[in-house]
């Protein structure tokens, strides 16, 4: 009997492990391997080129542009949905009329795929008849009309707004869950001690939401590092690479310029950056756990 159990345990664990190996470990290992080659993605013949690809990264101006954009993207993708989600959660938690309906409405975008979200916002930003320009024109005439996705100075930020619109619902729901874990009597102490709403939120609610904030930020970091699809739909990294992120840059080098070896090298660097961020983050997480766990 005992042996039977162990056999089935092994089988049941082996299945997901096999899937993980085929779809995660093997591609990961392949990327590492190809990053030392000049493979073009089709040709069965390719050469081992050592660290050439990594040297090329070192001198690639577009890579730096993409790295800066990725940093901007990450910071904005963490700050905006977190701040907006917290604000919405506090408003909804204060039991404004119709808060249940608002909750569903704000959560809805997260149920859409990034492609759909991207398409919706492409329509909104459309220069001639898009919603945004139509509204701006009604307000100010021609003056504020702008080709949001077609100009290098606004393309990245326009995508960030679309991204935040989608992600805010998720952080809001996590913060709402966090708010329900704050003991009622702590809020009553605030009331008896005479805290203003602002004092209560700043000195009590936000610190007590730390565990929820940790989760929100973790998801934002992970989602933003993966953020590729919405950029691909909305700008494709353009114009003039102004909204290129590392993931986008890697895609363009690998699948548009057919420099699979070089693309793999970029992906390796991206992997190492992600690993570093996540390691630092998990170390912080442990500190939070000690305080609140």
């Amino acid at each position: 009997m005992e042996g039977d159990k162990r056999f089935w345990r092994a089988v049941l664990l082996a299945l997901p492990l096999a899937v993980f190996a085929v779809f995660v470990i093997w591609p990961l290992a392949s990327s590492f391997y190809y990053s030392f080659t000049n493979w073009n993605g089709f040709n069965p013949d390719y050469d081992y080129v050592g660290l050439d690809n990594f040297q090329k990264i070192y001198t690639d101006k577009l890579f730096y542009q993409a790295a800066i954009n990725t940093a901007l993207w990450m910071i904005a993708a963490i700050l905006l949905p977190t701040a907006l989600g917290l604000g919405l959660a506090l408003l909804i938690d204060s039991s404004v009329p119709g808060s249940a309906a608002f909750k569903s409405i704000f959560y809805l975008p997260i149920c859409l795929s990034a492609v759909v979200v991207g398409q919706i916002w492409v329509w909104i930003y459309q220069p001639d008849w898009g919603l945004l320009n139509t509204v701006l024109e009604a307000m100010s005439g021609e003056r504020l009309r702008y080709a949001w996705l077609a100009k290098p100075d606004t393309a990245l930020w326009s995508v960030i707004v679309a991204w935040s619109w989608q992600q805010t619902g998720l952080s809001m729901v996590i913060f709402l869950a966090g708010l329900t874990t704050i003991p009622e009597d702590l809020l009553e102490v605030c009331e008896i001690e005479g805290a203003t709403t602002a004092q209560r939120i700043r000195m009590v609610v936000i610190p007590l939401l730390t565990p929820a904030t940790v989760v929100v930020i973790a998801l934002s970091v992970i989602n933003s590092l993966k953020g590729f699809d919405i950029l691909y739909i909305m700008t494709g990294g353009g114009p003039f690479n102004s909204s290129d992120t590392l993931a986008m840059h890697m895609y363009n080098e690998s699948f548009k310029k057919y420099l699979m070896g070089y693309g793999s090298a970029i992906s390796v660097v991206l992997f190492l950056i992600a690993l570093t961020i996540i390691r630092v983050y998990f170390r912080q997480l442990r500190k939070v756990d000690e305080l609140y766990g």
Partner: protein
Amino acid sequence: MARLVLEDVTKRFGAVIAVDAVDLQIEHGEFVVFVGPSGCGKSTMLRTISGLESVSAGRILIGDRDVTHVAPSRRGVAMVFQSYALFPHMTTAENIGFGLRLARVPKDEIARRVTDVAKTLQIEALLDRYPRQLSGGQRQRVAIGRSIIRDPEVFLFDEPLSNLDAALRVRMRLEIARLRDRLDATMVYVTHDQTEAMTLADRIVVFNQGHIEQIGAPVELYDAPANLFVAGFIGAPAMNFIPAEIEAGENGKANVRFGAVSLPIGREAAEGKVTFGVRPEHLSVAAESEHDFLGRVEIVEKLGAESLVYLQTGFSKAPITMRIPPELSVHAGEEIPVRVGRKRLHLFDAEGRVI
């Protein structure tokens, strides 16, 4: 002077009446304890005084000021919660000084006052610790410290010792008694523990189903309960209740009869069915010639300082509890002669009111 006056205070939650037209005057410096079973309205009453709950009807006055519709923070009250309600992300010092920080008191003054309070409560060494690093008793002290520092006119305690273990509860009870003597403030204390009520209170208010059953000094409630409810609630183990009848006795005075027992009550009373109440400590093992009834010992609980004996009798379905000195040797199954102390007989009419 902070006199606390409740005038006809009613609190409804939908159709449920939690507090029903309560009138009460608490004098300055008095320590009043609200007791009663769960759901009797005592905590709601306290929360209404604090302002955390609004009143449905009636008035609340603190020091002759009508605070019925005043915000909790402006009522001059401080509250100590059962759960301590300490902020987990703040140190002891920050928790105690919280109210002062909200009021934007200068930092050095906060530090000075926090140190003073911590000295009073003997928690100076814990000022830099977080709540999770404190024991239950220490946490409760911090919670008390937070309430003292604001120098309130009225202290409200909501079952502050319920989360502590028995030994600690006794120690904290003493500390609260010391605090009561040292602080010149009015205190209202809610508990379901009648020992706490008896030991701490100047006056006890017994709540039941949203209204006050009786108000009085602890000994008063113990010696002269106004009704069956108070008689049963105050005193541990609880008073024995025996179905009985009043009948005519000698010299125009009445007797109370239950089973074969007939006891003179020493005064006149109308004949009829009553409930006869006698406390376990007013029953004693008697010499064969002086006993009132025989009871078969069901269980003996030896508590060390005393023993509790549960008796089966012919006249009461519930076992009769008696309290005896520990050196008396009594065994289960044995039949023992019992004498009823004549001075402390309680009689209640069909409505439960004392006769």
